[in-house]
């Protein structure tokens, strides 16, 4: 069969809502795009452990400490699933990790912002995990089987993450004046970076159309961002928090919240590596990798010796 007819058949399968599995034929570009997206997603989970991990040792109650520790552990687990899912496309974990450490691969820019107070942990759970759920619920219907199945599992845990975050947000918003101030400050700092998580406007997003055609995504960046805003503005108001956007207004006709323009200079600046924590996050990841080198070598060497012994015995 010619490449063109294979491509046509592939597109028909997508249009019929079929799932593509690792052994199926797929256009090279589909494979490349998925490797890019899935490894970025995995890196985001792993780098995403750092901002919240920053507060584990300082959590203000045992209950919150346990919840946070288990949440960050979940994120490591998500990273692991996603690296494994990416391997089904022929990209080894070592390769994609090298890309991260060499600065060739990206991860979600949101993790390049610092966690300055405990309230940031609450707001990350509520807003950042809230945004992730909206994105991942869509990806759970993605055309690539291993990705969509990973997303189904991950979404279940993410909804617990968001729930604990919002519970804490509500508690602090209803707390002492210091707690109220702390939580509003965190919302003020995280709101706009969270809106940026959905990426550039549709007209500036070069990959969107292709990803939608291939059934990887089913909604555009702006559509996803709008559903995030609609949901979270209501949740903020329900607990008496303000959204730091003077242009925010409810449109009765469209039944959507209209919001102000994102600072795209800041967005691109952080994407290009100049966010408040980009260098620090990468330094931490590289250090962990370097410091772990002797451990990984030892494990390999031990496994080799064990194999040798077994071979001798048999």
């Amino acid at each position, binding site marked *: 069969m010619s490449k063109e007819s294979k491509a046509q058949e592939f597109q028909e399968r997508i249009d019929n809502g079929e799932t593509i599995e690792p052994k199926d034929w797929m256009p090279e570009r589909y494979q490349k795009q998925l490797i890019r997206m899935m490894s970025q997603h995995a890196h985001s989970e792993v780098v995403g452990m*750092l901002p919240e991990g920053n507060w584990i040792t300082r959590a*203000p109650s*045992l209950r919150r400490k*346990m919840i946070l*520790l288990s949440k960050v*552990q979940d994120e490591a687990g998500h990273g692991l699933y996603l690296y494994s899912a990416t391997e089904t496309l022929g990209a080894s974990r070592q390769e994609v990790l090298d890309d991260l450490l060499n600065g060739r691969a990206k991860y979600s820019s949101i993790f390049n912002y610092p966690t300055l107070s405990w309230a940031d942990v609450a707001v990350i759970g509520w807003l950042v995990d809230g945004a992730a759920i909206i994105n991942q619920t869509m990806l759970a219907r993605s055309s690539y089987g291993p990705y969509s199945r990973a997303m189904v599992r991950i979404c279940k845990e993410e909804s617990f993450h968001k729930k604990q975050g919002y519970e804490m947000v509500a508690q602090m918003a209803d707390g*002492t004046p*210091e707690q109220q101030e702390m939580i509003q400050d965190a919302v003020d700092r995280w709101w706009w970076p969270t809106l940026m998580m959905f990426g550039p406007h549709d007209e500036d997003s070069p990959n969107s159309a292709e990803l939608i055609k291939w059934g990887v995504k089913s909604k555009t960046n702006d559509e996803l961002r709008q559903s995030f805003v609609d949901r979270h503005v209501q949740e903020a108001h329900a607990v008496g928090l303000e959204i730091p956007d003077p242009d925010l207004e409810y449109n009765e006709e469209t039944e959507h919240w209209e919001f102000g323009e994102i600072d795209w200079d800041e967005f691109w600046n952080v994407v290009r590596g100049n966010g408040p924590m980009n260098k620090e996050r990468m330094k931490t990841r590289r250090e962990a990798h370097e*410091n772990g080198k002797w*451990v990984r070598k030892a494990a390999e060497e031990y496994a080799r010796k064990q194999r040798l012994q077994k071979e001798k015995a048999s």
Partner: protein
Amino acid sequence: MSTQTKTLTKKEALFEYLVRLADDRLILGHRLSEWCGHGPILEEDIALANVALDYIGHAASLYEYAVEIEGEDRHRDDLVYFRNDVEFKNLKLTELPKGDFGFTIARQFLFASFSYFLYTELSEVEDEQFAGMVKKHLKEVKYHLRHSREWVLRLGDGTEESHERIQDSIDDVWTYVGELFYQDEVDEILQEHNLAADTETFKEEWKELVVDTLEEATLEVPDFDQFMVEGSRQGLHTEHLGHLLAEMQHLRRSYPDGNWQ
């Protein structure tokens, strides 16, 4: 059994015993949690966070039972956030900085192997609630032993560098392990009522497990009779604990009136 005058009531002794057990687990869990996001491989980030979470969970149950026994309407968090250095009774072994992965594993193996025997004994105490809690946690304690033992083997019998590193860590931490077996009036009072383990009953078995493991890992076993530090159960700590507590307690103490549950 000692014939000295008992100054503690059974209730006071049980409270103290539970707090000692809980402090060990809270502080060690804190040290392990410092690895989160910094592990040598992602699988170990997960494993160490998991063990940290187990320890902090075990500590939470023990503190909860301790304040219940005490009956003074205190919350478990009061014990965590509002006691000072000298009031903490954890072993010095648990508060030492996390060090490199080899040090973490060396300490982890020595503590987990001890905990395995201790928890096995404690699951038989004549206190339904205490024994039930211990039985539940014993499953996790067995995993901690397996996890750390496997890593001792890998590092000991891995490369030259890993062998040297883990040997150095075992040697460094050795002076702190004698205290694992420390017993005083608190233990004696409870042992009379079958409410505590007698660490002497499993000391030899523990040594055997440690020797077997280190030998299998091609490591040298330090002298069990060398100088061993003491004083932890009286609140005499290393300088490291103060810094750990400053970090752990500062937020809660800065805003004591807030609801942080």
